[in-house]
């Protein structure tokens, strides 16, 4: 009866293999289809270690199955007493030495890759971005460029970009699985990592260190565009006029309401570094509202009316006067037309 | 349970041994005081380069502590093998902890 225990495991493995082959998860989110340097390095190691591990597992399972098939107590031999073996030097040496060799096989590339990814020597020749983790949103400050954005991180494809990361409150962790592994965002020490995305696209980023009730909603996007598009985006962002009047009347009313309710106390439009709340300069081009909602007006109104319902524990709730649905609607109208650049996530391919 | 046969009173041999032990402990004490004074003096007078000074006072402290353990607490005596093992275990974990916290906290 127990023979099929081993087979059962085998089935499991087969099944899961099928699963890997058929679905690696959502494109631009999964770590199994790397689109960047760090993720590629990681996947190489994942594959290498998996292969080594499967090799060991197969050996263990072979012995295991053999044992269970051959050495079950036999009928009619209930009183049989096996030989009491103490040990076997040769065997024991073998199963000490072989694992050591296998470990060396995985340790060497591990160490090499670790130093490779930690290399910061070229940082000053590249784009440097200051990343700030906040309870439950991300802020990006393009160093030396006077550009501030939140939630959507624009970077050029095929370029190393250095991220200097620090938290303003608790520990967060910056993770864009398909581009690179994660790096913690600590409150006292600045961490530096580089990312390099190979292809244009909008990639999902997630916070990977428990940071409070809305930890699971602290998503962000990395928008990878071509170098030319990126340059244009930079140009556009630099020339933003934070005071610019919107065209249509509703939005103008919205802008007035935005001022009246002192939204600017926390948020900024333009390159001012005020960072209690996300920077809204290019809010209209954001791929999501609050990192998670589809960028529709209804959703924005919902957010403005009651952010708590969407992101529990967020720092916006209760910090501004109540607004009526009508007012929220106008503010939303204003915010959604904040599109200083033609370069939007839609330009990032797909 | 160990009932004692020969100890209606402490015999003189044992007494002598205790005395010798006590003398050793006195010498240890004198050395400890000496080390303490040296450590304080070199810091107070500031005669030594900081690079040397810190290792020197640390070494002095370690020697003192070894004296405490081995002489005052008898770790050198028979029947202290397991205590010594555990103390060294503790010191091992302690060193790892301190090195970890010193080197890997700020960067």
């Amino acid at each position: 009866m127990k023979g099929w225990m081993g087979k059962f495991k085998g089935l499991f493995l087969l099944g899961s293999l099928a699963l890997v082959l058929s679905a690696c998860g959502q494109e631009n989110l999964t770590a199994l289809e790397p689109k960047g340097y760090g993720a590629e390095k990681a996947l190489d190691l994942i594959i290498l270690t998996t292969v080594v591990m499967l090799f060991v597992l197969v050996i263990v399972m072979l012995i295991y199955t053999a044992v269970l098939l051959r050495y079950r107590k036999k009928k009619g031999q209930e009183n049989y007493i096996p030989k009491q073996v103490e040990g076997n030097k040769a065997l024991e040496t073998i199963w000490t030495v072989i694992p050591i060799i296998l470990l060396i096989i995985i340790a060497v590339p591990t160490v090499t890759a670790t130093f490779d990814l930690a290399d910061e020597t070229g940082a000053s020749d590249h784009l440097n971005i200051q990343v700030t983790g906040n309870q439950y949103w991300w802020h990006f400050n393009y160093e030396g460029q006077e550009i501030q954005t939140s939630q959507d991180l624009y970077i050029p494809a095929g370029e190393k970009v250095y991220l200097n990361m620090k938290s303003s409150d608790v520990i967060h962790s910056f993770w864009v699985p398909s581009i690179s592994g994660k790096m913690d965002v600590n409150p006292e020490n600045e961490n530096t990592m580089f990312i390099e995305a190979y292809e244009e696209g909008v990639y999902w980023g997630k916070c990977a260190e428990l940071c409070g009730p809305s930890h699971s909603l602290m998503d962000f996007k990395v928008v990878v565009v071509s170098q030319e598009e990126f340059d244009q985006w930079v140009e556009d962002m630099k020339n933003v006029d934070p005071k610019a009047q919107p065209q249509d009347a509703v939005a103008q009313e919205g802008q007035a309401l935005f001022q009246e309710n002192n939204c600017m106390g926390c948020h900024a439009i333009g390159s001012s570094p005020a960072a209690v709340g996300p920077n809204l300069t290019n809010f209209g081009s954001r791929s999501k509202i609050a990192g998670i909602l589809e960028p529709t007006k209804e959703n924005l109104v919902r957010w403005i009316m009651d952010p708590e319902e969407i992101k529990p524990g967020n720092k916006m709730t209760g910090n501004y006067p109540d607004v009526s649905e009508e007012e929220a609607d106008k503010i939303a109208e204003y915010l959604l037309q904040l599109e200083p650049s033609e370069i939007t996530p839609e330009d990032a391919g797909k | 349970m160990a009932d004692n046969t020969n100890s209606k009173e402490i015999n003189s041999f044992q007494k002598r041994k205790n005395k010798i032990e006590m003398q050793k402990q006195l010498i240890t004490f004198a050395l400890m005081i000496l080390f303490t004074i040296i450590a304080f003096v070199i810091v107070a007078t500031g005669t030594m380069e900081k690079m040397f000074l810190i290792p020197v006072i640390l070494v002095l402290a370690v020697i003192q502590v070894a004296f405490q353990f081995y002489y005052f607490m008898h770790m050198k005596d028979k029947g202290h093998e397991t205590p010594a093992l555990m103390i060294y275990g503790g010191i091992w974990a302690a060193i790892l902890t301190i090195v970890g916290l010193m080197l890997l906290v700020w960067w």
Partner: protein
Amino acid sequence: MSHDHSLNPETMPHEPEKATLEGKNKFLGFWFFLGGETVLFACLFGTYLALRNSTAGGPSTNDLFGLELVFIMTILLLTSSLTSVYAMYHMKNNNFKKMQLWLGITALLGFSFLGCEIYEFTHYIHEYDFTFRSSALGSAFYTLVGFHGGHVTFGLLWLIALMVRNAKRGLNLYNAPKFYVFSLYWHFIDVVWVFIFTVVYLMGKVG
């Protein structure tokens, strides 16, 4: 076999603290406890070393510490370690009176040490406004040194309880391990202090 032999002061073996199984257990268990305490203090030292420069604009260790008082405290505690050695010496010679006397001296030295420490702390608080809450350095300093002080305090309470409890009945196989284990504890406190004066005060003075 009489069962109260362990209470008979006449039968005093060479190592009274380890003459019974209970005694042996206590002896060993306490040593192990000290092994654990080593790690406990290591964490405090590690934390202190990590935070020794985190003054948050307040006074630094160099501003605060004066060596004279620390020296006196060190001598007090070192001497009390020796006096407790004397006490154990007399215990092994089954001289209860002298043991009590030396333990008494140990206690006195311990109290003087504690007095100095309290003075030192109040001094820092009043003169420098350097408190447990004023900076990470303050927290780490008071916690490390305070944990040691707490150990001294507990040791003194323990010692007094032992001395008072056994004053009338003298030494026996039941209480000898208790005295012995106390002396181990007291030496260990001294060990910790050696590192405190070296790592906190002397190194703090050097910067």
